[in-house]
């Protein structure tokens, strides 16, 4: 289509294609390596010269399941879904309000919200620990959900506000003049047009939460153990279990890939800001 016709012609095109291919190979090689480690027998793991061909084994999977790592996967999934859902429910109206309504100290409030994202997380985790200890929120789903919301909510509001701003206000005015109530205008006009932006931003929030280590490690860890926190357990007194680490690592990668793949259409549209035209 358009990309086809815009492609540089001849040797320049070939050059660019090879550069792209080389770059992709460099980026994807560690992932390929990790994938191969999942089924590599321990003897072949660090063999010199590198063993490119070996008899695949499932022993790493057996160990990971026996050690209950699938529970960490479930924990991660529930926690991230829950916190992302809450962020969307709370953040969408907030972002809309920041974009549309006049209020006192709006800019100050907005900066304050963004401010929660400015400090390095390690500065926040200590006070969080003490507060959560007092409130009996340590090592609970609720506690970690709240902790994730603090940094994802600000990000979400910040990004979604610009999506809201790009919506022509006249669309809402037109609907209001037709006789739709404010809630109906939001449901019929605003929400459908914001959907791509919401999905794209929510996916980013989900990924941030999914990959988060510090908060999950400090505020959770036993009853509520996320996948990133479970990985260090594979550094054992008998040595580092590389194959198992590769299995857990790849497992952590897949849901994110799946989410991005399924929602690709929305994300691409959402990330190309200002795509809504009246």
């Amino acid at each position, binding site marked *: 289509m358009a990309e086809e016709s815009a492609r540089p012609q001849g040797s320049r095109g070939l050059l660019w294609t090879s550069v792209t291919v080389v770059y992709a190979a460099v980026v994807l090689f560690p992932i390929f390596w990790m994938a191969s480690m999942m089924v590599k027998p321990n003897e072949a793991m660090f063999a010199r010269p590198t063993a490119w061909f070996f008899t695949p084994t499932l022993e790493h999977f057996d160990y990971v399941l026996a050690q209950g790592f699938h529970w960490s996967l479930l924990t991660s999934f529930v926690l991230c879904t829950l916190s992302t859902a809450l962020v969307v429910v709370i953040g969408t109206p907030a972002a809309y309000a920041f974009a549309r309504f006049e209020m006192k100290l709006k800019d100050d409030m907005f900066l304050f919200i963004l401010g929660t994202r400015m400090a390095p997380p390690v500065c926040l985790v200590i006070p969080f620990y003490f507060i959560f200890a007092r409130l009996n929120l340590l090592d609970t789903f609720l506690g970690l959900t709240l902790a994730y919301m603090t940094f994802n909510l600000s990000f979400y509001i910040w990004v979604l506000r610009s999506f809201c701003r790009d919506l022509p206000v006249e669309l809402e005015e037109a609907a*209001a*003049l*037709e*006789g*739709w109530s404010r809630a109906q205008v939001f449901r*019929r*006009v605003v929400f459908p047009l914001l959907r791509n932006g919401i999905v794209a931003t929510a996916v980013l929030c989900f990924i941030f939460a999914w990959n988060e280590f510090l908060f999950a490690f400090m505020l959770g860890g036993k009853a509520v153990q996320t996948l990133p926190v479970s990985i260090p357990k594979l550094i054992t007194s008998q040595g580092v279990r590389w194959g198992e680490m590769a299995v857990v690592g790849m497992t952590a990668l897949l849901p994110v890939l799946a989410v991005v793949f399924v929602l690709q259409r929305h994300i691409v549209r959402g990330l190309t800001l200002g795509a809504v*035209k009246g």
Partner: protein
Amino acid sequence: MNAALAQSATRAAALVVEGIGKSFPAGKGGAKGALRRVLEEIGLEVAPGEILALTGPSGAGKTTLCRILAGLERPDEGAVRLGGRDLAGVPAGRRAVAFLFESYALYPHLTVRQNALSPLQAPNAVGAGAGRLDPAAAERRVDEVLELLEIRHLDARLPGALSGGQKQRVALARTLVQDPALFLLDEPISHLDAKLRHKLRGEIRRRLSAQPAPAIWSTPDGMEALSVGDRVAVIADGRIEQVGTPEQIWLSPVSTRVAKLLGDPPMNLVPGTLAQEGGGLSFTRRELRLALPPALAAAARRAKSAEVVLGVRPDALTLVPPDAAGAARAEIYSNEPFGKHAIVTLDLGALLVKAKTTMSLASGLGDLAGAGTGEGIGAPVGLELPAEGLVLFDGPTGRALPAA
């Protein structure tokens, strides 16, 4: 509340606008808290079924006025009444106003048909007397309007797949399906091509005239305003300059501002001075001299200043050979053939004047000017002023001098 308005719609209520004023923050560049006055003392009356064309240069306040009438902006002072009822406390959604936005404001995620149906499906749906139209009737009405606007075949498309002109017609359809207490059309056909504009101007006017609701049709095009309005209101710099029938506005513009806005091309405005000459008054600008006819002379006597501006329509000017007696000498600046007529621009000494002439005269202008054949650009030519159809304006204020 809405039922009452719908009732008044069927009873056909007049729109009365009194002393509307509005300021906006001056915005960037201005001091903080500074205000920019966009509307001042706007007073209008639109009878049921009447179309008032609102015209003025862009930035004059047309859109702001429409938005205030719709309830999308709050006026700083003044009142809007519909059928004697003050609309101050009535929110936009309950005013039963059919508004056409200049930017179309089509819902990008809904098809053409869904866009046009939207106002008929709303719970506070505008019009149709008591309550909502039943779905089948709503569909029929939408079909009819889409047919009229020649976009029925596009009804399953999304607005993103339409051309600008098609989008404007969808917006128009969404307005015309309604049966409101007031129509507000903000530049409804400005972005259409000439052919469609001519076709739709008549169609919309016909449709609006058949409706009991008053209508306001805003347009920056003065000629469009004259053609669509039962009456025309000219607005400039946030003030109403003149309200009147198209004939009144055309024949006796109250100010140079109104004169400048109307006509194709607009009225020529020639600054000059008044001088006593024999028993009468004459208008002089360099070698251009005109003994004023009695009616105009009477008007001129009321002038406070000798500095006046003479307004003359391009089609009233006559081109003659440069040495003709009594003609002012001018130089041909450009010559645009239109086929049915031609527009010749003349350099009258630091002032360009446009004359609308016959095609045959324009193509032989070089001959007329004695400069051989061709368009005759740069050649001298004589210019004669008519004795009628002239308007005299006061120089300093730009206000028309009242004739008799």
